[in-house]
Structures are given as structure tokens and as C-alpha cells.
């Protein structure tokens, strides 16, 4: 074969590879029903009879980088059978969607999550199956979750999704469909660690656990996320540290579903008196910590009702700091003022002989 032809074939192969790498990112779409014919338009919206904003726009590019990218629209909205359709019914996250779960080869459903949730402290029913007070306050799926977005493994890549081209090459040795490879790669690498940043997790919990009305209704003594934010862990989370423990790391037993969160009085809970030492001494956190470390008040708050001793102790130091520094700054300010207007007198003193 002449050299020129070889070069051409190599270049062509290069272009094909490049196409295969780039093209799948735009071909995940599960919009077989052509719903995006209408729903691709930003601004598609209305205000419903209850005064709630119904935003009907689907951002295809964002949706394709989400964990539901392969789910067809009608997988979640099965009531929509025709166009134009009636107002869509509320989505039931527990229905079977059209994705086949590979290990069981059955249609996928989030029913197991509901089972975990039933046993958790977030269930609206108590152990006897009776509704707890204010059952409407307990979270449903969408209270905590919006459409989860992929955060691939190579997290330190700041400009592009952290997809390792080398790893994809290894996938291609056995797997032929690039759609599958990308989806699988994104899914697995995202699922290997937390799918949300600790700050995002804390914000999600804060919607209820920092809400004073909900706290009062359910007799919660501390603003959990506010006090977390005051701790070393929370400060690091504010600076977007990915390694810092978030709410789920401490409140869920290692290896269990995050939906199976138990109250601190439950002896099986990760934060029960007998277990919380083990959580701190986790191999990834403070492996040499003794159980005493867990006695440290993680959710300590500057709050008279929570702890009067800590409150008055803090007030003393606040008064000491403020009472020293504020007058000092005041004196510096007045000194500057005198230097600025050396001869100005606001109130004339009356001369003695007058």
C-alpha cells in the first residue's frame, strides 16, 4: 500500500476515534417519544391552580448528564399517552421504569428505597404503623432529590467532565456500544463515591433541619446544619472539601443505605451513644480515636435553651472581646478625626471672665 494511502487511512481512523469519543455525549437522549419537540423550549411554563410554578422546559444537555438520562420520559410520566396531553400527574418514583436492572434482569424500580425509608426516622409512620404528628413534614423523594447529575471519577479536572479517555479505551476492548460505555462509566464512577458535594448534602438536610417551624413541631433541639457549619467539618465543607464528612457519613451506618437513617435513641443507629465512637474511629476518619472523642458536641450551638453553661461562657468571651476591641477602635477613630481636623471645636467653652 502506498505511504500516502496509509497516512490517509490512519488520519481517517483518527477522525473516527475522535467522533466516537465526542459523539456519544450528545446521543444519550431517551426522548423516543419526541417530547422535546415541545419541551426543549426554555420558558415553557405556567402557574397552576394552586399558585405553583410549573416549569415544563427540559434542558436536554443537562438531562443527558444525569443518572436518569437513559430513562424514557414516559418511564416516569406513564400517564402521558397522547399529544397534546392533559396536565401530567405527580410522578410516582416507585413505579417500574423501562430500565432493566442487570443483576436481576427485571424492570427497575425504587421500591427498595421506600422500604428502607419506612424503617427510618424519616418515615411518616411510627413503629406501630400509625401516623406520626405532622406526617406531611416528613420528606418524600423530591424533598431531598432533584435529578442527580453525574460527577465522574477524575474529580480534579476543573473544565471538563472527569472522563478518562484511557479508561474508555480499555472499555472498548470488550464493549462495542459507546453509548453503553459512557453511561456505564459515568454511572459507576459517580456511584463509587458520594454523588453530591458535602455542602450540597448539608444544604439539602438544612431545608428541614434548620427550619425553625419544623424543628419546633418535631421537638428538635438543635439547628443541625447550622451547628455543623460552625464545626471544623462544616467549615471545610463550606470551602468545598470533598473529603470532609457530611451528614450522611456520620448518621448512617457504614455500608447501609442512606435512606435507612435511624434516630439517635435507636441502639442500632450510627449516632447512638454506644455506636458513635465507632463512627468517628472509622478507618477513613480518625482511626486512632478512642470512644471518648465522640463525646465532643458536634452540634453544639450558641443557644441559651440548649446549654446555659456554654451560653454564658460564650457571652463572657464575646463581651470581653467586643468590650476590649470596640473601644480601642473607637479611640483610634477619634484620634484620626483629631488629626484630620486639628483645630476644630464643636462646643466653645465659655471664657471665665464672661
Amino acid at each position: 500500500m502506498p505511504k500516502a494511502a496509509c497516512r490517509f487511512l490512519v488520519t481517517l481512523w483518527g477522525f473516527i476515534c475522535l467522533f466516537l469519543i465526542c459523539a456519544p455525549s450528545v446521543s444519550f437522549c431517551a426522548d423516543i417519544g419526541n417530547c422535546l419537540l415541545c419541551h426543549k423550549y426554555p420558558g415553557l411554563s405556567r402557574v397552576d391552580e394552586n399558585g405553583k410554578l410549573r416549569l415544563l422546559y427540559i434542558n436536554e444537555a443537562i438531562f443527558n448528564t444525569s443518572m436518569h438520562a437513559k430513562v424514557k420520559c414516559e418511564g416516569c410520566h406513564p400517564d402521558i399517552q397522547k399529544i397534546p396531553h392533559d396536565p401530567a400527574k405527580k410522578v410516582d418514583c416507585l413505579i417500574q421504569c423501562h430500565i432493566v436492572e442487570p443483576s436481576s434482569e427485571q424492570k427497575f424500580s425504587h421500591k427498595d428505597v421506600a422500604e428502607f425509608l419506612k424503617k427510618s426516622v424519616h418515615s411518616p409512620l411510627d413503629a406501630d404503623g400509625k401516623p406520626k404528628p405532622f406526617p406531611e413534614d416528613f420528606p418524600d423523594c423530591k424533598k431531598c432529590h432533584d435529578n442527580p447529575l453525574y460527577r465522574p471519577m477524575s474529580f480534579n479536572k476543573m473544565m471538563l467532565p472527569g472522563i478518562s479517555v484511557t479508561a474508555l479505551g480499555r472499555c472498548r476492548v470488550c464493549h462495542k456500544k459507546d453509548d453503553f460505555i459512557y453511561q456505564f462509566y459515568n454511572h459507576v464512577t459517580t456511584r463509587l463515591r458520594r454523588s453530591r458535594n458535602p455542602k450540597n448534602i448539608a444544604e439539602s438536610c438544612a431545608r428541614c433541619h434548620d427550619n425553625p417551624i419544623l424543628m419546633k413541631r418535631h421537638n428538635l433541639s438543635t439547628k443541625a446544619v447550622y451547628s455543623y457549619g460552625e464545626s471544623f467539618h462544616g467549615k471545610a465543607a463550606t470551602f468545598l472539601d470533598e473529603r470532609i464528612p457530611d451528614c450522611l457519613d456520620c448518621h448512617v451506618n457504614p455500608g447501609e443505605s442512606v435512606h435507612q437513617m435511624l434516630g439517635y435513641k435507636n441502639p442500632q443507629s450510627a449516632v447512638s451513644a454506644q455506636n458513635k465512637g465507632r463512627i468517628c474511629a472509622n478507618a477513613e476518619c480518625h482511626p486512632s480515636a478512642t470512644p471518648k472523642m465522640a463525646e465532643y458536641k458536634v452540634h453544639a450551638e450558641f443557644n441559651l435553651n440548649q446549654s446555659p453553661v456554654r451560653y454564658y461562657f460564650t457571652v463572657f468571651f464575646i463581651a470581653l472581646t467586643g468590650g476590649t476591641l470596640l473601644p480601642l477602635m473607637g479611640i483610634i477613630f477619634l484620634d484620626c478625626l483629631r488629626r484630620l481636623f486639628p483645630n476644630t471645636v464643636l462646643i466653645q467653652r465659655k471664657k471665665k471672665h464672661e
Partner: protein
Amino acid sequence: MKTFLSKIYIIGFMVLTLGFMALIWKVTFHQIIVEYQNRKKSEQITDMRKEKERLSADPTFQSAIMEGEERVKHYLGYRVLEDTRIEGHFHHIDFNVIPDKGSYCITCHGDIPHDKSKELRAFANMHASFIACQTCHIRLEGEKRTGVFKWYARGTGEITDSPVKEGVLPGRYQAKIIPFENENGRLQRMDNPERMLFAAEFKKKEPELSELQKTKARKIIHNIVSKQPHICEDCHQQQAPILPFKELGYPEKRVNAFISTEVIGMIKNYTKFYMPRMLHPGQADDGSTPSGDK
């Protein structure tokens, strides 16, 4: 000069000192005040808790209207996706629309005003995000008609360059299209200062007006509104669309899309076509009529 510089230096130092004082106040005594206020609020909530039934049943203005405007940043590593969080909304939107301060219509009718026609309301609201109300709701006839349309900035109300020409993505335009009329040989915006002033004054004085006065004012404000607004086909057509797409900065590809079979076909067949049967294998076509079929 030396004296002047030393004065500037002293003033700078004073500003710095004041800044430090504010900071020290905020991290010290202000904390005590905040804690006290929170404790009082908590006591109030305890009282409210006694009214359990009322709390559960009636949404307050605060909970129904004021809350739900939370901004959320999703940290994905390679990018930060910032969204407005809408309670119960699952999908991410990834765009922001700043309020339209140039329109006097939306001060009464709101940003998402269309609600009557079930088939059209969402589409009409979508168009309202980049088209001023006057564009569709006023049919200019005869000498008044100019065929001139321009973009105005939502934030300032001033005429601005076409965001399409500047490469802004659809849905992210911070501008709207407004028609121009011919007023005694002069080209003027439909939302001219006199009309805006009249509407603004009505809005301001509305609580003091009698019902008759309100009716009079409303009639005057709406006397330019056509009984029949422009319909979809007035723009989405190949022969003589109302909007001069090219002059508004739309490239040929987008113009072709507006008047393509996809859009025109959708409008024409909107009430007739169905989800393809292939999506529901094994199900018989029951021949039911779509709800919107008229």
C-alpha cells in the same frame, strides 16, 4: 500636596477602622442579639404550634409566595451548575431570567400571564419570555403599522442589540422584542413613556380610586389591545411573517426552523397527532380523541 496625601491616608485609615468596628460588632455583640431574636422566634413558634390545625391547613403568604426562591449551586467538579430551586421540581434548568423592568403590562399581569387556553398557555408563556405583550396583543393596521420591531433590555427597558446576533443561547436572552408604531410620521415604541407613566400612576393610586375610576383607567390602558391577538401562524409561516426575523438578528438556519415543517406542522396538527403506537407495543389503538381536539 503632602498635606493632601496625609489627609487621604487618615481618611483611609478611618474607613478601615470603621470597617473593623463593624466586623467586631458582627462577630461579637451582634451574635448575642441574633441568638436572642432566634430564641424569641422559637417561643413564638411554640405558641403557633398550639394552633396545629390552622398551621397544617392554611398556607401563609410567606410559605406560599415568598419562599421557594432559593438559589442552589451544584458542585460537579468540572463545573458549578446554579439553579433556582423550585419546590417539587425535579429537572435542572440551568438558566436565569432577570425580571422585565421595561414592561408595564407585567406589573399587573405577571411574568407568566397566560392561563386560559390549556393547549396554548405554556407555549404563550414561553414566547412571553422574549416577546413583549404588545407584539402579539396589538394588531397595528393602516398607517400605524410600520413592520419595525426591536429588542429592548429586560433590566433597563432600553433598546439594545440583538442577543441572537451576539450569540446568546435561546432562553437566556435578557431582552424582548417590542413593536414600533407610526405616530404622525414618527417612529415610536408601543410602550411609549406616556403609556408607561399612565399605567405606573394607575398602579400607584389604585388603592385610593373608586371602582368607576379603576374601570376608566383600565379601559384607557387597554384601548390599544386588539380583541383578537396575533396567532401562531402569523409568525410561523413562510409567506409574510409578522416578525422580521432576519432584521431581529436571527440567522437563516433559525429562521428556517421557525417556518419549518416541524413548527408549522406542530401548530397545524397540534390537536390531531398522537404518540406513535410503536411506543406502546402490544396495546391496541383505542381511537380515543385527545382532550384538546377541537
